[in-house]
């Protein structure tokens, strides 16, 4: 036959894939809107693969089809969970270890901390090699790096030049916030911009680094002092909330002023918009509402308020377009259709949209990703019973896995501390003397414990060396803080707790996750001299009872001399040591007490009260850490060997009142009996009083299993 067979009508009938020019193929592939289709097409033939794997093509493709959410980078990468459409790809991404989120490709990776992420790039801040974090490092950051964990590439940014930096004097700076901004519109593909927002007492200064010019320039917002004068705002500290992003603009809520500060990254100019209704204490999410309007979701429920009125309201504000490049404040219009003027109560947030949420859940808006708004919904009964940390964990994971931009919100220190107050955190592991031991499977926290072990620094290398040039060791943990002590050199076999004198005390409180610390001053000579010689028998972090407990802490040092128990307390608010309570031991015991007699060095806490077994065995000492009052439970257990008796264990009985369980040593060879003492019979000793009463009933059980419960670390 001369003529070729007629073409099969249902086929394109190419003689070979290379019949189609690359340009034509690119045009076709750009119309594949699912990454899975693109991946399959790329494995059709080598020619297709070459076209698709090309960087320019992929960049073009991603510009047209925003990449799907793969997961959230908290301490580790948490892939999106089913039924999210990306869950399969996200799991593969994680399993393939496609990206290096520990940034090990940067020199001295442990010196760097994640600060922000955008468009696949991460902004890291670090301290120069060879020294730890100093006070003030978080106020003025000089070392910044931008890196790509997928391709394992990084750029170290030059420091902000001195002449520019002069615009913001470090003592004047209230807050310093570095973040990644979207690239200028004409350099979308290859460039990035980094912004450092320095909040000063009288002005806002922006330092902007552009990778295409490879230099810094600064923009000063002089209208700032006029904005923050007058009542309503905080007297000190940052005026701005966390950062929100929409339409190439960054937004901050201004604390107590009902205003939104808007930074347009196109002209790098600031403007403000008055919000229709007080948002105080609310969860807010800002979305792109179309037509250049910002949509603001306002959750009418918060995690800590009752009763719950579960709904979310929504309003839109229009940003007036700004054409000039000045940084003057410009008015922004609030969409009047969503705001109602009410004569009795002023402006009301008239909802355009009302989402009804399940009333049996604690709901909170966390943030947004593209068209989605993420809401945490956590069952109330889970919170109350404390029985299902895995449920809380799942909720935490679900909401945090929902979008990358929430990573910042969820890993924010104050959010986490607030979250923890409402949801007692699961046990993640043990911060022991030699390091951190994450929870092991099948404990539900095991994955998170591993993650914490990877993300936090339990060698405390970021804390500068103390007076004794010895390593820091943990003495207590509370709300994510670790109390560290460094002690003079001593024989390794020797239990150093026994011989540390108060004058040798060297303490620090740190956050191993965010690598911040505070060195504590020594106990003043005049405070301790009248009680010397004093030895230590207890050192712990105590609650402050402050509403702002996420920001404050107190450290209690229990000390003892021949006849007295003295509580030295350091408060982070006053920055000073004081003695709020002491106890005359001679009134409690018939046997003489020496300075070196040993108390059980660890204690247990329940509802702000700390419990110790007394050295002579028949007393349980209780310190109320809020009121600083000592009390004593006399449990008439003189038959037991104090030295081998275990620590008290506090549990909640059926009707919610606390009970003390005490492991008692009857035969001198270890604890064998479990004693239950209802703690309600505790009597308070006011000012060195001696009224002690026996508990009404003491019960005994044979212990089935003895476990050490001290030293737990909760995050």
């Amino acid at each position, binding site marked *: 036959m001369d003529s070729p067979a007629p*073409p*099969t*009508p*249902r*086929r*394109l*009938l*190419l003689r*070979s*894939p290379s019949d*189609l*020019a690359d*340009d*034509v193929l690119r*045009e*076709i*592939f*750009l*119309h*594949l809107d*699912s*990454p*899975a*289709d693109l*991946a*399959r*097409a*790329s*494995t*059709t*033939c*080598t020619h297709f*693969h070459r076209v698709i794997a090309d960087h320019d093509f992929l960049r073009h493709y991603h510009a047209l089809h925003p990449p799907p959410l793969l997961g959230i980078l908290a301490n580790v990468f948490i892939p999106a969970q089913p039924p999210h459409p990306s869950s*399969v*790809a996200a*799991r*593969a*991404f994680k399993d*393939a270890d496609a990206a290096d989120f520990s940034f090990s490709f940067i020199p001295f990776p442990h010196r760097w901390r994640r600060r922000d992420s955008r468009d696949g790039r991460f902004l890291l801040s670090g301290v120069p090699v060879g020294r730890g974090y100093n006070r003030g490092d978080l106020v003025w950051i000089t070392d910044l790096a931008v890196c790509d964990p997928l391709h394992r590439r990084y750029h170290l940014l030059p420091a902000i030049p001195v002449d520019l930096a002069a615009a913001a004097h470090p003592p004047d700076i209230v807050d310093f916030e570095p973040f990644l901004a979207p690239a200028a519109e004409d350099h979308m593909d290859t460039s990035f911009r980094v912004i450092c927002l320095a909040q000063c007492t009288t002005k806002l200064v922006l330092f902007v680094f552009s990778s295409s010019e490879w230099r810094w320039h600064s923009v000063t917002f002089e209208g700032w002092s006029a904005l923050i004068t007058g009542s309503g705002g905080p007297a000190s500290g940052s005026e701005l909330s966390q950062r929100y992003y929409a339409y190439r603009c960054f937004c901050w809520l201004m604390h107590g002023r009902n205003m939104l500060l808007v930074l347009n990254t196109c002209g790098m100019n600031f403007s403000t918009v008055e919000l229709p209704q007080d948002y105080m204490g609310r969860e807010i999410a800002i979305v792109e509402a179309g037509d250049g309007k910002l949509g603001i979701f306002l959750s009418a429920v918060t995690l800590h308020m009752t009763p719950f009125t579960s709904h979310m309201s929504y309003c839109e504000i229009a940003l007036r377009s700004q054409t000039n490049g000045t940084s003057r404040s410009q008015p922004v219009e609030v969409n009047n259709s969503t705001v109602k003027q009410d004569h009795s109560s002023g402006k009301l947030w008239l909802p355009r949209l009302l989402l009804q949420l399940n009333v049996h859940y604690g709901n909170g808006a966390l943030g947004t990703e593209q068209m989605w708004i993420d809401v945490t919904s956590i069952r109330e009964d889970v919170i109350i019973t404390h029985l299902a940390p895995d449920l809380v964990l799942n909720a935490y994971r679900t909401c945090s896995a929902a979008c990358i931009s929430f990573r910042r919100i969820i890993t924010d220190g104050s959010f986490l501390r607030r979250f923890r107050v409402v949801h007692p955190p699961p046990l993640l592991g043990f911060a022991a003397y030699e390091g951190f031991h994450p929870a092991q499977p099948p404990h539900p926290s095991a994955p998170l414990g591993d993650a914490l072990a990877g993300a936090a620094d339990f060698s405390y290398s970021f804390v500068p060396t103390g007076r004794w040039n010895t390593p820091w060791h943990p003495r207590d943990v509370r709300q994510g803080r670790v109390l560290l002590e460094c002690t003079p050199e001593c024989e390794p076999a020797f239990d150093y707790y026994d011989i540390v004198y108060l004058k040798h005390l060297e303490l620090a409180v740190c956050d191993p996750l965010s690598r911040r610390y505070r060195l504590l001053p020594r106990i003043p000579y005049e405070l301790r001299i009248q009680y010397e010689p004093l030895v230590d028998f207890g050192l712990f972090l105590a609650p402050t009872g402050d509403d702002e407990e996420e920001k404050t802490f107190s450290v209690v040092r229990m000390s003892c001399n021949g006849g007295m128990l003295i509580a030295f307390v350091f408060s982070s608010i006053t920055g000073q040591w004081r003695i709020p309570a002491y106890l005359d031991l001679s009134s409690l015991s018939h046997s003489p007490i020496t300075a070196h007699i040993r108390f059980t060095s660890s204690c247990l806490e329940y509802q702000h009260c700390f419990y110790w077994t007394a050295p002579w065995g028949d007393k349980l000492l209780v310190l109320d850490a809020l009121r600083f009052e000592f009390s004593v439970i006399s449990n008439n257990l003189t038959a037991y060997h104090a030295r081998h008796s275990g620590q008290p264990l506090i549990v909640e009985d059926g009707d919610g009142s606390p009970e003390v369980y005490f492991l008692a040593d009857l035969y001198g060879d270890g604890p064998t009996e479990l004693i239950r003492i209802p703690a309600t019979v505790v009597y308070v000793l006011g000012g060195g009083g001696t009224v002690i009463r026996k508990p009404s009933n003491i019960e005994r059980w044979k212990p089935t299993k003895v476990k050490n419960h001290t030293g737990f670390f909760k995050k």
Partner: protein
Amino acid sequence: MAAPESGDGNNGAARMVTLISSDNTRFEVEAAAASLSQTLQLTILDGGGGGGDGIPLPNVDSATLSKVLEYCIKHAPAAANGGAPNATAVDRAELERFDNEFVNIDQSVLYSLIMAAHNLEIEGLQSLVAKKVADMIKGKSPMEIRRTLGFPDPTPEEQAEMNAHMLEYGWAYE
């Protein structure tokens, strides 16, 4: 669509140009329609294609060219309005309906159209046919894509290489 040679292209309100297909068929169309092709635009601006000269298109046969010009004539008025910012919703809906119908064609014709749109650089048509091919690929396995596009079966070497890539994209096959 094959048109007899007319006289002077400047007679009417609209200027006409003549295009000559690879099999020597002459097509006379409004210059505005032919100018949708970036390739032809410059020639036409220089005054080419008028009178008896005609612009030869050796890569495009008459069946394909007639189809291409059908597209151009339909889209020329909207393109003249600068991307049709003033077009009514009805106009847009009509163009969309036309486009959908336009690519509902035999796949051998589609392939010729792809090549013609590419050679003539007609942006809208390139996008339209590319989308049609993309729709044919969507949801198919690599082997089904090969069959759809009429590729020969891969050589063992190529298959081995593709298998390696498939491992990399395993998630796309679940």
